[in-house]
Structure formats: structure tokens, C-alpha cells
């Protein structure tokens, strides 16, 4: 019995944070995002990113919005924004209310990620707004193989999310009255825990960036996130 308890206790102690917990952040207040929930990127990814993620471009606006900003005041050193949860999730519903950025050649996103891109460890589930916020790019990567679909969308605020289950991923929009309407479903089994990420960045006009994002001709601005919710 004692050995059994020991095993249970050790398992509980060392289990990874991989549950689809009831995570919520309304981005209230001011200053930076909650440091116990979010890690803020402060580095450059390299091509095809045409900007450097910076602490300075992430803040709470004081009106219950998180701002992920692109600062292009120095065209040769554009700054952009990214945050990710410390914890990882396995399965659940992931919903966000946001106003994507409208910069041509930029990307504002809400997605899950794990692994190393270009290797079988890479898994990912995406909601990305590109093309000045006029195109929604949905994608699921399993072992570095992707399955994407794009939709023309209106700009402005919207509530949108995806549900990740053992045998499928589905994307849905949420009406003002809270009604979910599914618009895409992929039968796929992705099992690896992933971190939740939000970012807003511009491309570097490399072939890869132009192909995905279009041409970035300068300019900055914000993407706004009202809240993020994860539930079982």
C-alpha cells in the first residue's frame, strides 16, 4: 500500500502540465501580461520573420485588451510581439476574441505548437489572419505534415476557436449570442501536448514570406486580444 501511494505521489509530482485545464485570461489591467501564465518572446526568429519579438511590443491596454504590436518606426529594425503559455495542453477547446492586425504582409495568430519545425516532432494547430486581416488561414500539422484551408473574412473583431480531440480537429466561429458554428473539420490524431501561442509579426519579403503573407511594405499597428479561453 505504501509503495502504491509512493508511486501515485511520484506520478502526480512529475506529470507534465499537459491537461486541457480551464484556462482563461481576460487581459484585464495594465502593464504586461500575467507572467505566471505567459512567456513573452524577446528574440529574433530569423527568416522569414521580418521583425524581432520584443517585450516592448506586448502590453495590456487597460481596456481589457492585450495588445500585440508591430513597431515599424525603424524600418530596418521592425519590432513585433509574441506570447505563449508556460503550460502545455492536450486536447480541449481553444477560443479567442480578437481583432486581427491589418498590416499587409503580416500575420496575427492564435495557435498551438510543439516540436521542431522541419522534423517529425513538429505538431501545430493554427488560426492565423494574414493578407491585411482579410484571409483566415487554418492549419493542422502532424509530424511536420500540414493540412490547411483558407477563408476570406471580414476585418474587425470576431470570436473564433478550434477544438482538439483525440481523433479530430475542428474550427468554429462564435456568434455574438454565443452560438458556435463549425466551419472546418479534419479527422486526425495529434497527441503531443502543445503550448498556446499568440503572435503578430511581419514577413521579411523572402520568397517564403511573400508566398505566405504577401509583401510587407512597411507600416505598423496592433492586433488586439480581448480574451483567451481553454476548456475541456
Amino acid at each position, binding site marked *: 500500500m505504501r*509503495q502504491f*501511494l*509512493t508511486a*501515485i*505521489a*511520484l506520478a502526480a*509530482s512529475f506529470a*507534465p502540465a499537459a*491537461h486541457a*485545464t*480551464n*484556462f482563461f485570461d481576460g487581459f484585464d489591467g495594465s502593464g504586461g501580461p500575467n*507572467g*505566471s*501564465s505567459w512567456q513573452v*518572446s*524577446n*528574440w*529574433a*526568429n*530569423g*527568416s*522569414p*520573420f521580418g521583425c*524581432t*519579438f520584443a*517585450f516592448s511590443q506586448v502590453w495590456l491596454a487597460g481596456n481589457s485588451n492585450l495588445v500585440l504590436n508591430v513597431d515599424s518606426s525603424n524600418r530596418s529594425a521592425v519590432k513585433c510581439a509574441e506570447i505563449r503559455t*508556460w*503550460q502545455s495542453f492536450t486536447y480541449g477547446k481553444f477560443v479567442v476574441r480578437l481583432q486581427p492586425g491589418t498590416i499587409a504582409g503580416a500575420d496575427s495568430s492564435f*495557435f498551438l*505548437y510543439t516540436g*521542431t*519545425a*522541419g522534423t517529425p*516532432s*513538429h505538431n501545430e494547430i*493554427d488560426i492565423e489572419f494574414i*493578407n491585411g486581416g*482579410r484571409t*483566415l488561414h487554418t*492549419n493542422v*500539422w502532424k509530424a511536420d505534415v*500540414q493540412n*490547411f484551408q483558407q*477563408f*476570406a*473574412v*471580414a476585418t*474587425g473583431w470576431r470570436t473564433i476557436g478550434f477544438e482538439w480531440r483525440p481523433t479530430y480537429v475542428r474550427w*468554429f*466561429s462564435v456568434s455574438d449570442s454565443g452560438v458556435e*458554428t*463549425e466551419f*472546418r473539420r479534419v479527422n486526425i490524431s495529434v497527441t503531443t501536448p502543445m*503550448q498556446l*501561442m499568440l503572435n503578430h*509579426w511581419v514577413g521579411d519579403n523572402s520568397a*517564403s514570406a511573400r*508566398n*505566405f503573407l504577401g509583401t510587407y511594405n512597411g507600416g505598423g499597428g496592433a492586433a488586439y486580444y480581448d480574451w483567451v479561453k481553454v476548456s475541456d
Partner: protein
Amino acid sequence: MDTKISLGRIGVLMGLVASLGLVGCGGDDSAASPAPTPAPTPAPTPAPTPAPTPAPTPAPTPAPTPAPTPAPTPAPTPAPTPAPTPAPTPAPTPAPTPAPTPAPTPAPTPAPTPAPTPAPTPDTAFATPLDAADTVEGGSVASYAYASTASDQTAGSVTYASGTETFSASLSTSLLLSNPPGFAGAALRLYAPGNTLTGTAAPFNASGFSHLRVHLASTTDATLTIKLQPSPVAADGCVPTAQALVSATLSEIVIDLNDASFAVPSYCPASTTTLHQWLAGLYAIDVINGGATAGNHDVVVGSISLVP
């Protein structure tokens, strides 16, 4: 024996720690992972040689052919507390060069008067609903519906209200449950200016436009399909096609008139017709609700215009 007891006690203690939410294993956010707070930027130590910026996030995954879209690329193994970029060693201040005798400053050239910003070129109207059958531009409005089992579908009629056309069809059963899954659609067709159901076709040359501006809604479904139809219309739907995410509220959607937005469906045979050619002979625009579940499926279309 002693060892077992000790391990057991340690285990129980660790279990208690876990139950208090001090380790990440579920629970709410605040009780999740240890969550190290991102370190505030410490005063950087000047490095003799500037180290490269740590790049926890690798380059985005290149999209395999024909995928046009690499996904955003986050860090594969993000450092829990990413090190701030070391500050580069400040360059030594060069010795000041003796300044030559300054030349007389020329009189500043007056800045040219900036030209007034030209007004944006207005859209060209393609189809503005006038009533349930016509557009302001002299085109017709029509509807059609289809289903893999037509007996399961009941189509309504086109209605006009407040500058929009609405059409719906209902399915008595979900065609998605059949094996293989079936299909269905309810569509509005708005003809190009001056083109009527009974008249001689006079396709519209839209090849010089960059975007399509359309006002769409559906009270029943989240996606609508937009097809650029030539004359004669392609009944198989093998024409440039885009998809739009819509809501119950009429909203303006601006779609690029390029291959990324308008592609011929993958089920179609390979086509040598370019989008430019399709646009040069634009006869009608179809907006389709392809919902195939049981119940009503509607499509709402407001004005359609072309953006230079």
C-alpha cells in the same frame, strides 16, 4: 524497510504538494505549472564580441509543395527564461576629425508643394440587388439548389429586402450521414451588368481589377462559396472558387482576385485557363451555401463590386 517507509513519506509529501497545485498537472491557470516569470531585462553585460541573438524560434517550416503557407514558427524548445539579447559592445568613439572650414550654407531649397492625395478610385459596381430578380446594373438574379438525393431537399424562392437577396433550401435529413457522404447546396447567381436570364450573353471584362468586394451573410452556416462563372456557366463548378467565413450579420468581405484566393477546385480536371482569362469573361458570380446537414441552409448576398 526503512527505505520503503522513507520513500513512502516523501511520496505522500510530494503528493500533497501536487494537490496544493504547486506542480503543473491540471487545475486552473494560477495553479498550473511553476510558471517562471519572465525575467526582467537585466542590465546587459557588454560582451567583447556581440553574441548572436538567441533564436528559440526556428525559421518557419517551409510548406511542402504545393502548400503555399508556411505555418507560424514558434520556438521548438523555448527557454523558460529567455536570455535577453546581449548588448553589443559599444564601438569606440572615433577621435574627432578637425572640422574643415565650413562652407557657406546654401539657401535651403524650398520644398515643392506636395501634390494633393488623389482620391481613391471608386469601385465598379457589378451587381447591386434591386429586387428579387434584378440588379441595379441590369443583370438578373437567379437561384438554384442541388442535392445528392434531390428528394431530401426543398428549395425556397429568392426574396429581396434592404439591398440584399436571400435564398434558402432545407434538407429533411443529413446527407452527410449517407455512405458515401452526400452533398447539397443552395445558391444565388448574380449576373454581370446587362446580362439577363433570357438575353444574349455579354460577359464583363473584370481582368483589370484587383479585388472583389462582396457583402455576405448566412443565418444558418459559417461558410459560403463564391464562384466566378463564364458563359456558358460551368455546371460542374470547375471555375475559380473562393470560400468566405460569414456570420448572420451582413458583412463586407474583400477578396483578392488572384490564384491564392480563387482556385479551381481540386476535384476538377486540370485547367489551362488562367484566372486572368476567367475574369476577362465574367458572366455571373455564384454564392453557394454547401450545407448538407438536416435543416435550413440560407445564403444572403448584398452588393458586389470590383476594386481597381
